Structures are given as C-alpha cells and as structure tokens.
C-alpha cells in the first residue's frame, strides 16, 4: 500500500487532537506559518504551545474547544503517504465516526492509560468493525500520568481482548505512548524500556490491512457512457467506471447486469492510453465486442453471480438530524443501482451503551444503528458489504430535501 487511509475518534479529554498534532509536528508535516498561528493562538489563550490547535478547524469548534465534524489531514514520510479522517468521539457524533471510518483502511483507538477500556473504547471499536476496517491500533495514551508503568499497559491489552472479539476486528496492535511529551509517537520513548515494539508512526508505516476487494471477482459499476461522435471515433462506445472488485483483462468474458447479457471486453483505456488489464481501484473506460444495453447503474461482472435482490437486509446508521418517518419513500443510491426504496422493517436497534441489539420500535433517530430490511422498487446489483465495500454500501436520500439521511451496509 502506498497510502494508508486511517481514522481516529476521540473526545477532548483523551488527547486525540494532541496526538494528531504530535504526529504532524514530529513528522515535520507542519509549516512555519501554521505553527506561528498556533503559537499566537496558544499565547492568547494563555497556554503553552497547544498542538491540538493544529487540527481543530472550524471557528465554532475553536470557540467550544471540541471537534464536531470529520476533518481530513495529510502527511507523508519517505515510506508512505497518509490520509487521516479525524472525527469526534462522543456518542452524539456517531454519524461522524461512521462517515470517517467509511473511507478508512485502519483505525486508531485512543485509551487513557489511567481509565483503561471505557464505554467510548467499545463504541469506537464496534464502529470500526461495523464499517469493515481490517486493522486497529490501540494507542494507550497518557503513559506519563501512570509513571510509564508496564502493568497499566498490559492490563489495557488484556481488557481489550473481549472488545476485539465482540467488534470482530481481525488485526489489533497496541502502543504505549504519551502524545503530550511525544513518547513512542514518532520517536521511541526513553521512559519505557520494557516496550520493544514499534512507535506509532513506525507501525503506521508498515501496517498492511487486508484488501479483500483486490482478490475478489471482477465488478465494474458503470458511471456513464462515453460516445465521442467524432469522425475519428465514430462508432466508439465506452463504459466509464472504477473497478470495484478484482481485475479484468482484454478478452475476458463479462456479464452485463441487470440484463444478464454476455459480452467480451475488447478494449481498456485510461485517457488516450490503451491498457491490457485494469485492477481494483482504477478508473478506466471499457469497450465491449457487441452492442448491449449498458447505462449508468449497469454493472459488468465476471466469476460469481452478484446479489440481485429487491429486499435487502442491512445494517443502517441514521445520519440525519430528523428521524425516520415510517412509510416514507427514500431514494436509494448505490453503485449498482438507484431508485425508490422504503425501510420495510426496523428489526433491531443497537444500544450504543451496551452494544447489544434490542427489538426495534419502527423509529430511527440521529446516530442510531439498526438492523433493517430495505425494499427497493427495482433490485440493484450488489454484494455483501463484508465482501466488497464499494458494492455493499448504499445511502438513503430524502426525496424532498435531498439530504443524505442514512448509510447502509448490506448483510
């Protein structure tokens, strides 16, 4: 992986902004004028150089001293590029955490060494598992406040094991650190000789979370049809999209959904360059050997048959400030189809404190996560989210206001 996309969740008290500020500062990703602004701002507030000010973007947040949205940060080391989705951690920002995790390969979970595994730890881990993140790094922070004691660290590691299992996280790493003084963030700690593992940055540089989509059967949702209508390319008809799973080679037989027609790929293009093959993640144009009905929402596949169901079982996170109106028809949007849909049933709703699903009442409020069934007017072409994130995720859009009200993961 040349780039690691990761997410963090945390609240004011656990030192998340300080940790990110420290990562940026110690990896020399902060520019002089940014640092000057932070220094001036810290001075006005009468504090020492406050690295958390590097990441708290919006005016209201600065005034309230909290992070209320998802903010994206970029830094690079000679080994790797990083894209960080930085999200708030309180329960009322669950939807922001879900949003941040949706594009991430890995998550950083912060634990205050003094308090150990708490409710918030479980919630963040659960969301990481729900969104299909393959790796988690548990940062046991504020080790300076527990005299850098190994016992405090090992207790957290042991206490986290049931959380890991419940959240279904395949790969977990632990790092004892102090964001405030910088121990084990970028530079190894002189205070914790008992820890011989990598620093946080070293771990971020070497982490290789599994990418099941790279090895799965070929999936290619079509975004738009390209018809130049010029003399030179008079009969050219290409299908533009991004490979959502597997790979394709010129000469491969593919099936076009929803019509279920067979064709052979006879060209793959990126700009004016002809390619022999295209892999997961690439944006290309494909041409087929015969005229078939392909439009936006069509999906080209090879190998296994995709899911074609009008009634979808899904885990749903309610994002909108306004709750769900039972019976309302939403617009369903996924890469494999778009159209009207309704929530047929709210089966169970997650209790965000106990992390157990409880019987649903039909209602859904902001930040709630539920198991639902969604009935679509036309069956979209999908996969389970666990197999392919791009083909298994969908959103529901309010038909009048146009807002994104919910995000779903097909089971």
């Amino acid at each position, binding site marked *: 992986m040349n780039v690691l996309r990761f997410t963090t969740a945390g609240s004011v008290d656990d030192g998340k902004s300080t940790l990110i500020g420290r990562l940026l500062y110690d990896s020399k990703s902060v520019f002089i004028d940014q640092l000057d602004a932070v220094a001036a701002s810290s001075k006005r507030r009468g504090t020492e150089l406050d690295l958390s000010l590097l990441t708290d973007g919006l005016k209201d947040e600065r005034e309230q001293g909290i992070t209320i949205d998802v903010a994206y940060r970029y830094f690079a080391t000679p080994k790797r590029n990083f894209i960080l989705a930085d999200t708030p951690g309180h329960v009322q920002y669950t939807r922001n955490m879900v949003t941040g995790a949706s594009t991430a390969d890995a998550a950083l979970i912060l634990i205050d060494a003094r308090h150990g595994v708490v409710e918030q730890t479980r919630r963040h881990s659960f969301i990481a598992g729900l969104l299909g993140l393959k790796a988690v790094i548990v940062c046991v922070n504020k080790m300076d406040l527990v005299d850098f004691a190994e016992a405090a660290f090992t207790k957290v590691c042991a206490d986290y094991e049931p959380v890991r299992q419940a959240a279904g996280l395949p790969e977990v790493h632990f790092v004892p650190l102090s964001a405030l003084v910088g121990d084990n963030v970028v530079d190894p700690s002189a205070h914790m000789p008992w820890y011989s593992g990598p620093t946080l940055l070293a771990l971020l540089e070497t982490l290789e979370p599994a990418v099941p989509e790279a090895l799965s059967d070929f999936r290619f949702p079509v975004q738009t049809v390209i018809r130049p209508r010029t003399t030179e390319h008079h009969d050219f008809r*290409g299908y533009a999209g991004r490979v959502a799973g597997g790979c394709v080679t010129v000469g491969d037989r593919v099936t076009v959904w929803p019509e279920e027609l067979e064709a052979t790929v006879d060209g793959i293009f990126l700009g004016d360059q002809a390619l022999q093959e295209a892999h997961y993640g690439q944006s290309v*144009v494909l041409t087929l050997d015969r005229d078939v009905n392909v439009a936006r929402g069509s999906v080209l596949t090879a190998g296994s048959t995709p899911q074609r169901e009008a009634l979808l079982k899904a885990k749903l996170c309610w994002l909108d400030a306004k709750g769900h109106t039972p019976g309302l028809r939403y617009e369903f949007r996924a890469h494999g189809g778009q159209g009207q849909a309704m929530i047929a049933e709210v089966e169970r709703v997650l209790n965000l404190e106990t992390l157990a699903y409880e019987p649903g009442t039909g209602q859904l409020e902001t930040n709630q996560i539920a198991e639902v069934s969604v009935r679509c007017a036309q069956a979209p072409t999908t996969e389970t989210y666990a197999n392919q994130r*791009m083909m298994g995720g969908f959103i529901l859009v309010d038909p009048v206001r146009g807002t994104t009200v919910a995000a779903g993961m097909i089971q």
Partner: protein
Amino acid sequence: MQQPSFLDELEAEAIFVIREAYAQFERPTILFSGGKDSIVVSHLAQKAFAPAGIPFALVHVDTGHNFPETLEFRDRYAKQIGAELIVGSVQDSIDRGTAQEEQGPLGNRNRIQSVTLLETIDRERIDCLMGGGRRDEEKARAKERFFSHRDAFGQWDPKNQRPELWNLFNGAKQPGEHFRVFPISNWTEMNVWHYIRREGIELPSLYFAAPRQVIWRSGSWLPVSDFITLRPTEVPSEKMIRFRTLGDITITGGIESDAVTLDQIIAEVETLRQTERGNREDDKRSESSMEERKKQGYF
C-alpha cells in the same frame, strides 16, 4: 519510488469524482482561475472522457486585476482543449451596482468576486462548479466535502454539511441551489507538483522564477502593477520571483526563488516550510478568514 503509484490512486479517485459530477448535474463546469490546481482538474477532466472531448465549460471570474499572463494562458488553454469559456466580470458587477469596491489602502476585489461568481452561475444556469480546492490548503477546507452543497445564496453551511460515505456522492438539490465539487480534495501541494511533472502539464510562466518588479508588503513580495498604489516608503526593486498560487494581482505575493524548471520547483517546495496560502493577503486578516469567505460563497 512510491510517489507514482500514489499519484495513480489520486488520479483514479479524481477521475471518478469528475465523472460523477458529469452524470449527476445538468450544467457542470470547471471554475478556472488559470492556477495550477484548476489546470490539473481540467487535465483530469480531459482524461476522464477521452477519446471524447472535455464536456465542461471553463468559468473564469475576472477581477479586472489580473496578471496579463493569466488571461493569455486562459484563452490559449481553453482553445487548446476545446472547451467553452465563460467569463464573469467583477467590473461589470461594480458597474451594475451589485458589487461595491472595498475602500481603504488594503481594499481589494477578492471578497466581491463571490458576487460576480453567483451572478454568473445564475446567468448561465450552472448547477455544478468543479474547482481545484484541496483539503490540505487551509484548516476550514480540511472539512470540505467532495460534493459541497450551496444554497440559493451560494452559502456554505459548515455545521450542516451532508455526510459523505465511501465514494457515494449525493448531488441532490432544490431548484436554484448548486454544488461545488472538488475532485482533488485529497491531494497535497506536493502531489500536484509531482503530477504536473509526470503528465507534462503546461503552466503559466508566473510559476517559474524570473526577474520581476516587486515591493515588500505584509511579509511577502507583491508585484508592481497598475492596480496597486505605492506607499511613500515602498520602493520597487527587481528580484528573481516566482508565485506559488495565482490570484488577483493586487494580493498575490511571490517568493524569492531561482527555480526555473519543474524539477527545481519540486526540490524547492520540498524544503519550503511555509504553506502556499501563506503569501495571500486575504487569508491573513483573521484566524477564521477563509471560513468566513467560504460561508459567503467564495470558492
């Protein structure tokens, strides 16, 4: 070397976003400043639709205070890629009385560009403007979406942004509203430069160091032009100067540099410890200045 394949991934993402804008809007356009970021977006748009032509018009907001090179480049570039060019003139807005010139020695036309932009959107029935905004440029931009919803007044509501999950972009809107779309959101300044070099993209000469007449004002070298009034203490001098961003000539400060090739620029950017907007007068007014302008419809 890792940079190339990371660029491939950024390119694939940007092309995907541009195609989504094309598919979801009726009159999608590219906001073209003549700066490197909007040139990169235009290049990506060409690549996204090849072998068909670029299906977007270029929209330029002309403050009337331009570097001459910018206008020359704009006209030539639009012709070269075969794109329609739509120009919104700030001077016209001032003449109509819909925009008012800022007064005082530091007055500039940066803020009132928003008025002209919204008038142009209205006149041309534009429902989507793609721009070269990047999240690494400034703190307020770090929270910007790929598809950013604007109300009928062109306003951005940072506290009420639509959540954006995976790469499912929601361009649904009410009549009169529009979207700003940022295909290179996830690129850094460094990525942009590496991509320009890799793709052999042509840039306005202002990005390369040359002897230029400048004055020292508010911590950077401001080009001498007909549009700025020299204060008694300000004496123009000739320096080797290049510009890291291109905007209104009255507020775009340059840096002293010997970089006359792309390789030299990349080497210089790698060692520069100032963010590129650091030389823009408009951002220095207050800690929240970018956010304030974005709320009012600034790009």
